Each structure stands twice: as structure tokens, then as C-alpha cells.
């Protein structure tokens, strides 16, 4: 009987250890593939380049920005009142924080990767900016200007997830994305209301709409492009736009509330 109980205990222990090991192995994450080699020079002839400009408007009654309760952190509570940034409508119904980019039409051109970093700051217990764009391989500088603890947690689908601690205002992390992805959500798990979105592309033709809803994509070679406008709540819209040499075309997007 003793050996029977021993066998049961030993068997349970081995089964459990095996289950843990298998689960751990199954959940192990492989390293991301390195980004493709970047071009060293711009493949676009500046003498023929054109531009696409446009306006993103909100149709309907815009929802009022609601104040965010930040009382879970005494430091955040003392900061200027934050309001929801989900739908921000400015003058003449212009919709802010829309990521507009060339989705298709650039062919197999390879564009140089800027070495200057794009900054995503945690400031006043919010992400600044709320929406931004970056190229594959370009450094993204993650930093905090707040005198409280934040984490920076990216939850992409195509790129590798990461979660970094920012325990001091002076600390910075630099990250590069290896694959294009529209959009990569960012959050801070310490402060639930904090979020941001980063559009990662393999070319430089993207913009984020300003407070008046306007955007501009400069330096485009002549051609026909699919332009997509992405909004975190209202979804996406696309338009086909053709531009000739040194031509500027205008496009309008209307998101209904």
C-alpha cells in the first residue's frame, strides 16, 4: 500500500512537471526576424515628386470628451485634468488623431530609414502624442516626464510584444519595429486610461491629422495610390488618388459618428 501511494505521488509530481515544461515550451517566444536591409538613398526623384493633402471630417454630433478619474495615483490626480481622446473633433468638424497613410501603390521601392528617433512620452499621466507614425527600423524613444511609475506596454499583432518599466523620469528606452503594422496599441497597465497608437510602415508617407483634421503626404512619386485613414474608434476608410509630376491632389474623408 505504501508503494502504491508513493507511485501516486511520484506520478503526480512527474505529470505536473511535464505539464509545466510542455506548457512553458509551447508558450516560448522566438525572436523576431531582423528588419529588411534599408535603402541608402531616396528612390523618389524630388524634381517630380508631388503631394496628397486632405481633410478628415466628423459627421454628426461629436461626443463630449469626458474627464478621466485619475485618483488611483496621487501624482496623476494633481496633474491637469485629462479627458478622453477617443474622438477629438476640432474646428469645422475636423477629426484629430487620424492616421493617414499610403496603403498601396508604391511598388517595390525601398526607402531609407531615418536615424532620428520618434518620441513617445508619458506626460501628465497620458501618452504624448496619442497617435504617431514611424518607419520599420527607425528608433522609437520611449520616455516618461512624470514623477511616478509607468510601464510602457506595446501589444502588437505582427511585431513583438514588449513591456518596459519606466521608474524614473530620466529613464529612456529605445525600440525598433521589425515589421510594418497599422496600428500598434500602447498602454500603461499602471494607469488604465493611458493609451496610444503607433503606425509602423516601410515608407515615409504617413501623417496624423491635426486639430483641424488636415493632413499632408509630401514627396510622393507620380502614381496612383490607395490612401487609408485609420481611426481608433471609427474604423478605416480608403480612397484611390492619382497624382502627376509635381502635382498636389486633395482628398476628403468623412467619418460618421
Amino acid at each position, binding site marked *: *500500500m*505504501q508503494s*502504491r*501511494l508513493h507511485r501516486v*505521488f511520484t506520478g*503526480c*509530481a512527474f505529470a*505536473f512537471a511535464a*505539464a*509545466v515544461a510542455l*506548457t*512553458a515550451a*509551447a*508558450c*516560448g*517566444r522566438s525572436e523576431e526576424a531582423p528588419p529588411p536591409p534599408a535603402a541608402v538613398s531616396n528612390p523618389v526623384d524630388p524634381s517630380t515628386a508631388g503631394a496628397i493633402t486632405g481633410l478628415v471630417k466628423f459627421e454628426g454630433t461629436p461626443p463630449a470628451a469626458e474627464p478621466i478619474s485619475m485618483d*488611483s*495615483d*496621487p*501624482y*496623476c490626480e494633481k496633474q491637469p485634468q485629462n479627458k478622453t481622446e477617443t474622438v477629438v473633433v476640432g474646428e469645422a468638424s475636423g477629426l484629430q488623431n487620424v492616421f493617414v497613410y499610403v496603403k498601396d501603390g508604391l511598388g517595390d521601392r525601398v526607402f531609407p530609414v531615418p536615424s532620428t528617433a520618434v518620441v513617445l512620452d508619458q506626460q501628465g499621466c497620458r501618452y504624448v502624442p496619442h497617435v504617431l507614425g514611424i518607419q520599420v527600423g527607425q528608433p522609437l524613444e520611449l520616455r516618461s516626464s512624470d514623477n*511616478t*511609475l509607468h*510601464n510602457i*506596454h506595446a*501589444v502588437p499583432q505582427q511585431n513583438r*510584444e514588449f*513591456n*518596459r*518599466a519606466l*521608474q524614473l523620469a530620466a529613464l529612456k528606452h529605445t525600440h525598433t519595429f521589425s515589421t510594418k503594422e497599422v496600428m500598434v496599441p500602447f498602454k500603461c*497597465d*499602471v*494607469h*488604465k486610461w493611458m493609451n496610444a497608437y503607433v503606425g509602423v510602415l516601410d515608407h515615409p508617407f504617413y501623417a496624423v491629422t491635426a486639430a483641424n483634421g488636415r493632413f499632408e503626404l509630401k514627396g510622393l512619386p507620380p502614381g496612383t495610390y490607395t490612401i487609408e485613414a485609420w481611426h481608433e474608434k471609427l474604423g478605416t476608410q480608403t480612397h484611390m488618388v492619382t497624382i502627376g509630376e509635381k502635382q498636389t491632389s486633395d482628398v476628403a474623408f468623412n467619418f460618421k459618428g
Partner: protein
Amino acid sequence: MALRFYTRLVALSTAVLIFAGGLVTSTGSGLSVPDWPNTYGWFMFTFPLEKMVGGIRYEHSHRLIASTVGFLILVLALWLWRVEPRRWVRQLGYIALAAVITQGILGGITVLWYLPDPISIAHAGLAQIVFCLTAAIALFTSRSWANTASPAVDDSVLRKLTVVTTMWIYVQILIGAVMRHTDAGLAIPDFPLAFGHLIPPQWDPKIAVHFAHRVGALVASVLILATAGHVFYHHRRRGVLVRPSVLLLVLLAAQVTLGALTVLTARQYVINSLHVVTGASVLVTSLVLTLRAHKSRLGALAGGIAATSLGVGRVPPERGALEGGPAGPTRTGARA
């Protein structure tokens, strides 16, 4: 006496730990501390209290409570090793210690790997096992277990019923853990109906998991009612069976209410966490009833081991060490 009190304290602390873990998931704070075992670079126990803000409050508290429970279980295992004559009870202490260490590692892995569902669900499932182990140790070292004045229950129907009920409750908790960690808690937003129907008119994996949890709750309720009904009808004079049966019914009522409120309040985090710890309490109460229903069998099984350990050969079940409770002086030289 001191050991009896201590085993209960350990079991209770494990329940507190499960509640704290429930708060972490209910508030979505699992990744608010990105590093492990450190906390934002600090050694866990030197992390400044004033920096416990937002989600860190829940995650870091959970880590501190988990460390405390781990230490309590370590002391329990050592204590049992020193004074407990029944080898299998000592082994339960070692298993509890191994389980809580594994649980801590799973907790660390799930943070470092950004809460992968299988690891998080395993973490939730093992938490229940740790609670069951500590509660079982508390039972086996209790005065009621040592009491040999009344003959042990010998009811094969009750034995089967309690085993099935306890196993089903554990399965139901695992389904709940899957629902919780796959963010399916509000996949069906109404209660008691599902999208206004008895059966959901539309399906996706989240709705399926959520609905499985509701059906599982129904089955668990029927099994608990059947078990309690059997006890009340056939063993109404046995307090050791009636008391956990009554408690089981009370906890079941509370658990169903909390489950409904979890949906109706859109997962209010305290209600949600109470639902988790009450579910664990239902499991442990059912386990206690199961073990008491199996006392005669366990006495026969483990009594032989204890007797062998004592070097006196096999003893009859009714005189087995299992029935004799924790030993004091007879412990000397008892280990094989």
C-alpha cells in the same frame, strides 16, 4: 494544538491569496509590474509603499501575499516533517510546498511572457490545488479527523457523489479561468438569459466558453444539491457531513449570486474577485466533504503506511494512524 491552528491559518491565507490574485486579473493589473522577481528594479520587499499606485497596488500586493503564503507553507512542511508521524501527511506538506513554489514560478513566467493564456490558466488552476492541499492538511490534522469515537462513514453512493461533485467543481473553475483569461467574461452580456434566449442565437469561441461556464454552473448546482440532499436524508445526525453540506449550499447560493452580479455589473472588480474566491471555497468545502466521506477508505489506505512507518506492520483501519490524528510523542523514531 498549535499545529492545528497553524494549518487553518495557512489554508485561510491561501484563500486570501486567491482573492488578491482575483483582484489582479479583475483590474487588469497583471502587467503593471513588468519585471519579476523584482518590482521596478527594487527587491520585492524593499519596494516603497508610496509607489504602490494604480495597478501596481494590486500586482505588488499579490506578490507580497504570495511570498508570505509561500513562507507559511514552507514552515508548515518543516513543522509536519518534525512532528507529524503519518508519512503521507508529511508528504502532503512537501507536495504543497512544491506546488506553491511552482505556482510562484508560473506567476513569474506569466508576467515575463505577457500573460499567455495557457500559463495564466495553469496559474489559476494550480492556485486551487494549493488551496485544496492546505485545506486537506488542515483537515487531516484536525480534532474532528482524529476523533474515533464514532465509526467512519461507509456509504459508497456518497463517496461516488462527492468525488464527482468535487471533480466537476474543479472543471467548472478551470472553465471559469479560461473564460477569465480569454476575456470572455462579458461575451454574453445578459443574465440569466443569453442575448434574450435560453441558448445563444450566435456563437463564437468566447460565447462558447462563457456559455459552457453557465452550463457548468448549472451542473455543479445539481450535483451539490444532490450531495447535500443525500447527506441530509441519510446522515442527518453526522455533524461532520451535515456542516460542510450546509456550508456548501450557502456558498453555492453566494457563488451563483456573485456570478450573476459579475455579468450585470460588467465585471465590477470586487464582485468579480469575490466570485473567484467563493468558487475556490465551494471547491474546498466539497473536498472536505469528499475526504470525510472517504475517511474509512483513507484510513485503510494510509493506516498501513503509517503502521509500516512505525515499524509495526499493517494495522486495522479502525486503529490506523489516519484515524489517530496528529501524533505527539509517538512521533519519535516513527519515520522509516
